[in-house]
């Protein structure tokens, strides 16, 4: 099964050039943010006399309103944004999938309890949860990841549940049940592989929304703590200079766009490759 999927994945990448481009872009972003220390500027060094300088040979991306090198900040910011996007997605997908499949497959009181918990969490407005959670937890990147993860698994759970409910009525699942297979085995062999396309699509959207939600947190003043930066917080800070220094909004905006686009392209490639129906052909 696994080798087959890998083969499909490889053939998908051969077919879809955008997928390759996405991989390249993401690899580049990951590498440059990992090797951000090679930039000869301290991302946090304030130089009062060099405020808001447009891009130049010395400062490739210009400087921000504190005179800090914008390239260095963008690269270090990339670390934060990518980490936030990926880790909070991981939290959300794990929790969401477990809750969703359990709820959809077992039904009955399990479903009832789990879905009521989801209902309670989802009916409290998200900005309220954000602000309150933020007040409890010590500000920091870990907190942001936790908050975003905690706020986004419910969507996945509900969608996965809906799929699982539908899949469990299918003939092959009914057959597996009648033939006395253990629920855990049925979930692992039949339910999860079948909800995979949905999970992957959800996960790509989730990574995108996690990076975006991080910028929303910045908008609410709860983002990454200064002097650190993330693309979201940089973008938010740039709003005040949209006329004076448009480059400040362009760079982080472009990075967010490219990263999220890439994750989505990748998601499509995965979906095409993992889709059970595609395997049959």
């Amino acid at each position: 099964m696994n080798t087959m999927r890998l083969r499909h994945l490889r053939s998908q990448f051969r077919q879809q050039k955008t997928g390759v481009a996405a991989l390249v872009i993401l690899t580049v972003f990951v590498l440059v943010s990992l090797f951000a220390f090679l930039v000869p500027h301290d991302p946090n060094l304030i130089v009062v006399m060099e405020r808001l300088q447009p891009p130049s040979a010395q400062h490739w991306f210009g400087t921000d309103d504190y005179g800090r090198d914008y390239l260095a900040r963008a690269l270090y910011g990339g670390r934060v944004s990518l980490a936030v996007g990926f880790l909070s997605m991981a939290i959300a997908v794990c929790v969401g999938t477990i809750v969703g499949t359990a709820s959809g497959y077992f039904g009955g009181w399990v479903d009832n309890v789990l879905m009521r918990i989801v209902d309670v969490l989802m009916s409290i407005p998200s900005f309220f949860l954000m602000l309150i959670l933020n007040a409890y937890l010590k500000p920091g990147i870990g907190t942001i990841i936790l908050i975003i993860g905690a706020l986004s698994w419910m969507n996945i759970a509900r969608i996965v549940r809906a799929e699982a409910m539908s899949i469990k009525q299918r003939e092959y699942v009914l057959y597996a049940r009648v033939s006395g297979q253990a629920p855990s085995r049925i979930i692992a062999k039949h339910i999860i592989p079948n909800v995979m396309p949905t999970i992957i699509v959800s996960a790509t959207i989730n990574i995108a929304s996690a990076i975006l939600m991080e910028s929303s947190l910045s908008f609410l003043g709860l983002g990454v703590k200064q002097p650190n930066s993330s693309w979201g917080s940089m973008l938010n800070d740039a709003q005040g200079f949209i006329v004076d220094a448009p480059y400040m909004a362009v760079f982080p905006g472009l990075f967010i766009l490219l990263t999220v686009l890439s994750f989505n392209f990748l998601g499509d490639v995965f979906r095409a490759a993992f889709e059970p129906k595609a395997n049959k052909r």
Partner: protein
Amino acid sequence: MKSKNLLLSLVLAATAVLASACGGGGNTAETTKPAESSAAADEGQPKDGGSIIIAVQDDPKVLNPIYAGDRVTLTIDQSLYAPLFTITDGKKEYVLADSDSFSDDHLTYTLKLKDGLKWHDGQPITADDVVFTMDSILDENQHSSSRDQFVLDGKPVKVTKVDDLTVQFVLPEVSAAFEGGLAGLSPIPKHVFEGEKDIEKSEKNNNPIGSGPFKFKEYRAGEYVTLERFDDYFAGKAHLDSVTYRIAKDPNAANLALENGEIQMRMVDTQDYNRLEQTGKFNLEIYPEGRLQYMVFNLNVPSMQKKEVRQAIAYALDKNELITASYSSGDFAEPAASILTPDTLYHTDDVQTYDYNAEKAKQLLADAGVSGLKLRLAYTNTNKPQTSQALYIQQKLKEVGIEIELLPMDGTAYGNKTLDMNNKDFELSFGGYIMGAEPDAYKSLFLSDAAYNYSHYKDADFDALWSKGAVEIDTAKREELYKQIQQKVADEMTVYPIAYTKAIVAIDNTYGGVEEAQPKPVVMLADLSKLYKK
């Protein structure tokens, strides 16, 4: 969002206006005829008619001056209600009041109202209204936040009507600060509120009856408040037909709306100044806010109890650079040395200053036997200048071997922590206050047991200076007392004054009469009735 959460400074700012001299809705009563002043000379006579849209950050709270405490409500009340009198730069200007006088023993104060004053609904303004207002403030069940200003030594001031236009105040003890507390107080109409169980929650506040140059027309939640000209205003009709306060939540979007002409007046940030000036479309008024921005040392933490360490930190910072980093340029903030703002009575620059000297800072630290100091600096996370200052201070103190951990906090959490008398969670924090012209008002920030004594510096002699200052009637002696106070704080370095900040108000330059309307801290313009459409 940015400035919304300056909880502390706003609260302080708010108080100041209530508490002290900078009130004054239509303080033009007896001044020279403004229409003939300079602006009129080159632009002809001010025309009547037209309207203006002013941006405010949030919905107003209760539109009743005895409760107003936030920037937006104070701004709107400024046009809606007229005060009894104002004190600006030590000069008293009568508004609703005609005259006032103290008895020789300074225990009885008599205030006379002008004749023929009218509320917006046409009823006369009389001594009854003033007495009713004072009674409401003093009534504990009405929980007005101004109450304490009129309770001296635990006893309330007694207010009685002498005749229709005369009110007598009997003070339980001599108070030099009483007049300052009364300045800016706007009466509320007795015939409207009489018999209301809870004035603060009264439906009548939804349709306020005021005494200022503009009367209430309409409020749409989340959208705007519109006021229209009050034709019977005693100091002459306003030029504009109406004034609208538009609620604009997002400062960046509000700036674009300003440039776009959808808003004609707004308080802007220093970072917006250059751009707005380049458009050539705005009259940009820069004026002192009467506000001190400072950093405070928390003496609850043992490492901050050594005076040398505090002084070393002061020497390690370059105040001019600090100001440039946070306010773009020295044009928008004046370096501060004293805890009293320049507009306060008895302000002096004759205090110890700490010019940047890294060597001296290191020396002081070495003398104190301190090394490898690690400090925490707390501030409000949505406050841009504070963030800038924090970043600068972190970088600068590294040079003298002090490591700073930044603690940006949510506004509410920050306010909570700073008010905790036993707080040891951070050594350094920022604050800002507008306390007005009366120096006595500042004592709530410095007395040993005051809730707002953020430094937690406790010294009986120092407290005594404040108490003496409050009751000293001889001006020269009083001046000397406040000078000692300012020198003491500068020497002890419990509070590091950063700057006396300035406000910038951008007004579309199709409007005239800005100078006559008097730019004013917190509320933008003191007297909108003087503004006119060119």
